């Protein structure tokens, strides 16, 4: 016998996840346009691994497999992870990352809805710490004008590690715009000199700035459909902008423009797709603001002063740790108990 209410609004978890994945499509489209179809291979690899791991873990945990495979959450994790690692990464890198993300950081905690850490970001962090070299070989976007790889050649490299005759890895890949910026600053160049390098476009890195724009478009779609609340992306981007702006104003020769930060690395995809994972973010409005602001500041600190080129993943994970406490201490006042001196 089921109990009231007997009517429900026709929404489902899998529908929500599906819409989020749809919103990733513009970004992925730009990705393919600028970097070739290699990313689709990673996405497919990650998706297959994620579904297989999810099914295996559900079986082991004695939970029904079908409804959870259909909820699309594993697929979304896979997509986000694939989008945050280099598209030309060897196949096993994708598989290991996804495997770790789904099995350890999701299912050991009880699967959907129970994981305290963002699985995709755990996968990313594990990979960047364990395989730093493979994680720095990013494809050069075609506007930069290096020799391009065909789809078959990309596939060949992903699965066998073999490049076409006469090409070295360095010829077709490069460090990310953020990474280059950091290295060059260390070498004593000023921001202005670095920005004149051919890999940079109007806002940030050539190609990558457009991918970020794609993700932003998808994010606006999510906001418009109220799949995500405005607090997280807006506050995150705002804080990142403000922090970067502050340093830029103090010393423009050493600190790039805030817009550069917004359109580089994982800032956009993070703001709209990673921080907004409802399971691992706070639930209260005030909590969301604290969470996003913290993530924004941490992202900037790690980017500008830390040991890693991008801070988005670690900022997310560090703020994930704080979520239970943020939630506990930002409980909003309930109906009738807002006025000062109201009875308990």
């Amino acid at each position, binding site marked *: 016998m089921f109990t009231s209410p007997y009517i429900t609004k026709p929404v489902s978890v899998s529908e929500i996840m599906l819409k989020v994945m749809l919103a990733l499509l513009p970004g992925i489209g730009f990705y393919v346009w600028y970097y070739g179809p290699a990313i689709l291979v990673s996405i497919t690899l990650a998706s297959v691994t994620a579904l297989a791991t999810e099914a295996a873990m559900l079986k*082991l*945990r004695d939970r029904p497999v079908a409804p959870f495979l259909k909820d699309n959450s594993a697929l979304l994790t896979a997509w986000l992870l694939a989008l945050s690692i280099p598209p030309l990464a060897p196949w096993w890198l994708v598989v290991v990352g996804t495997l770790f993300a789904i099995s*350890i*950081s999701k*299912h*050991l*905690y*009880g*699967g959907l809805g*129970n994981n*305290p*850490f963002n699985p995709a970001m*755990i996968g990313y*962090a*594990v990979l960047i*710490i364990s395989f730093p070299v493979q994680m720095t070989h990013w494809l050069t976007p075609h506007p930069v004008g290096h020799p391009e790889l065909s789809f078959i050649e990309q596939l060949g490299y992903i699965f066998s590690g073999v490049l076409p005759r006469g090409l070295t890895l360095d010829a077709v890949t490069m460090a990310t715009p953020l990474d280059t910026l950091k290295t060059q600053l260390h070498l004593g160049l000023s921001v202005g000199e670095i920005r004149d390098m051919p890999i940079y476009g109007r806002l940030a890195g050539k190609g990558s700035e457009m991918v970020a724009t794609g993700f932003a478009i998808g994010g606006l779609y999510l906001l418009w459909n109220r799949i995500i609340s405005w607090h997280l992306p807006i506050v995150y981007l705002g804080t990142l902008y403000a922090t970067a702006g502050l340093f830029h104003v103090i010393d423009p020769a050493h600190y790039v423009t805030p817009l550069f930060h917004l359109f580089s690395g994982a800032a956009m995809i993070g703001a709209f797709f990673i921080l907004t994972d409802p399971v691992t973010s706070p639930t209260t409005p005030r909590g969301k603001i604290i969470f996003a602001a913290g993530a924004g500041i*941490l992202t900037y*600190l*790690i980017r500008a*002063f*830390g*040991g*890693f080129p991008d*801070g988005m*993943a*670690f*900022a997310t*994970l*560090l703020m*994930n*740790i*704080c*979520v*239970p*406490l943020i939630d*506990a201490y930002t409980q909003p006042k309930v109906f009738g108990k807002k006025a000062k001196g109201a009875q308990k």
Partner: protein
Amino acid sequence: MTDYLLILVGTVFVNNIVLVKILGLCPFMGVSKKLEAAFGMGAATTFVLTLGSGSSYLINEYLLGPELAYLTTLSFIVVIAGIVQFTEMVIEKTSPELYQTLGIYLPLITTNCAVLGIPLLNVQEKHDFIQSLLFGFGGSVGFSLALILFAGIRERMEGADVPPVFKGSAIAMVTAGLMSLAFMGFSGLIK
């Protein structure tokens, strides 16, 4: 001034005593089931560690000197044990519940490797008195921070559908590992 600030930030975040240096895991695992206990333990450890690193500096500098350096470990343990005993009495008097919840972990602060580790590191790094105090305070704040955040997550996980074999300490260890992973993000921030 910046030097002091860097020591503080460095010990709290970048070189977090638990999550980066992996010291003091025993109370980290033991007293993190409840948030209140974690706060209590954090406060007790902070008190002991700050006082301990201060006094151990004084002992090392004025009582022992270079010729009696082989006595550092011994004398530090004695001093820390004394402070822990004192803390224990105060807590038993002021908060019996906390005393009960902390249980064996309260006297065990004496053998908490973080508590001994920090004064020894102070000697090693040749910190002066203020630096020693700050290092001790920062380290213990870092310890408390990690402990409290960890307790928050563990309290939340009470309701999670964790597989039976992973319930309790197992999943706590996994969580500690993932937290440590996240704290690696701070690496390189301050040398």
